[in-house]
C-alpha cells in the first residue's frame, strides 16, 4: 500500500491573545481540516488573508503545535517525528527572508549546512541552482540588500530546492512580485513539477495561478476547508464557469467583500 505524501486529519489550531487584564480572545485559525496528497501531486489552497493558509503551512513545517488532529508527511508524524519531517520539507514564503548583509551564496550555504551539506557540496551546487532559477550566478556574492524583490524570491526558491525537499510548501510565493518575476517563478514551479519527484502544496490568493499550476484546488475559508477537488469538478459542483464564482457560491461572499472584525483578528492572530 502506498503512503500518502501528506495526510492531514481533523487538524485544528486556535490562537488566543490577551484582551484587557483578565480576558483572552480566542480565534480558530484552522477547524478540523482534513485532506490527503499523493506523491508528485500539486495542490493549491486558496483563501483570503487570515483564512488559515499560512497556519496550515506553518503546522506542516513543524513551526506550530496543533490544538487537535494529526498530520503525517510520508508516513512520519509531523508533531512527534519533527526532525524526520524537517529533512523532507522545505518552503518558500511570501517574504524572501534572508540575512540582508550576507550575499546570496552565503545565505544559501548557511541554509544548506542545516541540511548536512558541506562547503565542497555547496560550492559546486549553489551556482548551478541559482542559474536554474534564473538568478545570474555572477551576482551570487552581492549582498541580499542590493537585490530586487524578484531576485530575492528567486534566491528563496533556490534555498528551498538546494535541500531537495520531497514536499515543497509554497506560501504565496508570487505575492508582491512584478508580472515578469511572477511569471518566471511560476514557470520554475512548473519545471520543478516536471523534472523532480516533488510534491507541492501551494497557498495563494491568485486563482489563475492556482488553476494553472495545481492538480487539485482547495478553498480555506475562516479556517475551514470547504472543498479540495480538481478545478473542473469544483466548477461543476457549483455550476459556475470560474473559480471566483465558485468562491462566491461556496462562501456566500465575494472575494472583495468587506471583512468582519473577526476576519481581521484571525489574520492578526494567525
Amino acid at each position, binding site marked *: 500500500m502506498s*503512503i500518502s505524501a501528506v495526510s492531514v486529519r481533523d487538524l485544528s489550531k486556535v*490562537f*488566543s491573545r490577551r484582551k484587557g487584564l483578565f480576558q483572552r480572545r480566542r480565534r480558530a485559525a484552522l477547524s478540523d481540516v482534513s485532506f490527503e496528497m499523493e506523491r508528485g501531486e500539486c495542490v493549491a489552497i486558496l483563501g483570503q488573508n487570515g483564512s488559515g493558509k499560512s*497556519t496550515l503551512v*506553518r503546522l506542516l*513545517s*513543524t*513551526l*506550530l*503545535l496543533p490544538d487537535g488532529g494529526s498530520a503525517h508527511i*510520508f*508516513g512520519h508524524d509531523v508533531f512527534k517525528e519533527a*526532525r*524526520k519531517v*524537517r*529533512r*523532507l*520539507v522545505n*518552503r518558500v*514564503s511570501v*517574504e524572501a*527572508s*534572508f*540575512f*540582508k*548583509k*550576507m550575499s546570496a551564496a*552565503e545565505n544559501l*550555504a*548557511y*541554509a*544548506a*549546512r*542545516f*541540511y*548536512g*551539506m*558541506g562547503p565542497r557540496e555547496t560550492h559546486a551546487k549553489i551556482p548551478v541552482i541559482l542559474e536554474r532559477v534564473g538568478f545570474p550566478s555572477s551576482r551570487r556574492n552581492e*549582498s541580499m540588500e542590493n537585490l530586487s524583490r524578484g531576485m530575492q524570491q528567486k534566491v528563496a526558491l533556490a*534555498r528551498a530546492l538546494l535541500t531537495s525537499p*520531497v514536499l515543497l510548501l509554497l506560501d504565496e510565493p508570487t505575492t508582491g512580485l512584478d508580472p515578469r518575476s511572477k511569471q518566471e517563478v511560476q514557470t520554475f514551479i512548473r519545471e520543478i513539477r516536471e523534472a523532480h519527484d516533488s510534491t507541492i502544496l501551494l497557498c495563494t490568493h491568485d486563482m489563475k495561478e492556482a488553476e494553472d499550476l495545481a492538480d487539485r484546488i482547495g478553498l480555506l475559508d475562516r479556517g475551514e476547508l470547504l472543498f479540495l477537488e480538481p478545478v473542473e469538478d469544483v466548477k461543476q459542483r457549483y455550476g459556475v464557469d470560474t473559480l471566483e464564482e465558485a468562491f462566491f457560491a461556496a462562501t456566500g461572499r465575494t472575494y472583495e467583500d468587506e471583512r468582519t472584525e473577526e476576519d481581521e483578528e484571525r489574520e492578526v*492572530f*494567525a
Partner: protein
Amino acid sequence: MASVDATFTRRKILRDELVGLFGVVERNLYLTKRYFLWDLAFLLWTIANTLTIVFIARGVDLSPAQQNVLATKLLVGGVIWAFLGIIFEIVTETVAWERWEGTIEYTFMAPVSRPVHLIGMGIYAVIYGLVRAAAIFVAVVAFIGIHLPHANYGAAIALLAIASVSFIGVGMMTAVLPLISPEKGTQLGFVAQGLMLVVSGVYYPISVLPDWMQWISKISPATYALRGNRDQILHGAGLAWADVWPLLVIGTLSIPVGLVVFRAGERYAKKHGKLKRSG
C-alpha cells in the same frame, strides 16, 4: 520510501549535525565580517568603559604598587563583564537576530537539532569573546601602564574557557526570552548578566556583600572566573582546582538546564504562534 528513510541513519545524522554546527559558526563569521566597523566601534566603547573603571585606581590615595594591584583587579572585572556580555549577546541572538532578519522560521524548521544550533552559537561566542577580551585587556594595560610581571596568561585563558561552558548554559536560558517577548526579551538578557556579576565580586571582594548575596555568589560561575583570573594575572597562579571544580559542576548542570529551558520556551512559542518574524 526506502530512499526517504535511508536519510535517517545514525551516522549520517551525526555527520549532518557537525556540518550544521560548522554552519552556525560560519554564518557568525560572515556577519562579523559584514559588521566589522560596527563591531570595532562597539569594541572602542567597551575599552572606554573599562578605562573609566580602571582609572578609579589611579585616583585612590595608595602607593603606586597598591594602585597597580587595584587597577589590575578592576581590569579583570571589566574584561570579564565585557566577555560575559558578548557571550550572552551572541547566544541571545540565536533568536533575536533571526527574528529581526525574518529567517527564524527557516532556521527553526531545519533538521539540525537545537542543542547543536545553540552550542554552535556558544562556540562562536567564546572564540569571539576571547579575542575581544584580549583586545580590551591589551588596550587598557597599554593605555594606563599597568605592570603585570607575573601574569600567567595561558592559565587565565584556560580558566575563562572552562567558565564559558557555564556562561553558555546561562546564555541558553536567556536566549529563549526573545521568543517569549520579541520587544523586551533581549534586554532581559542584560538583567541576567548584571545579576550574575553583582553577586560575583566584579569590582569588589565578595566579602563586602551581605551574607545572603555571598551565598548566591557560590553558584555563580563568574565568582570563580574572577577569583581565578585575578590570581593568575597578579600572582602568576596556575589553574587552581578550587576554581576549576565548581566551574565544571556548574557547567555540567547549566548546559542541560539551559537546553531544557530553551526547549520549553520553543514549545511555548510553537503553541502560541510566536515562532515567527513579527512575534
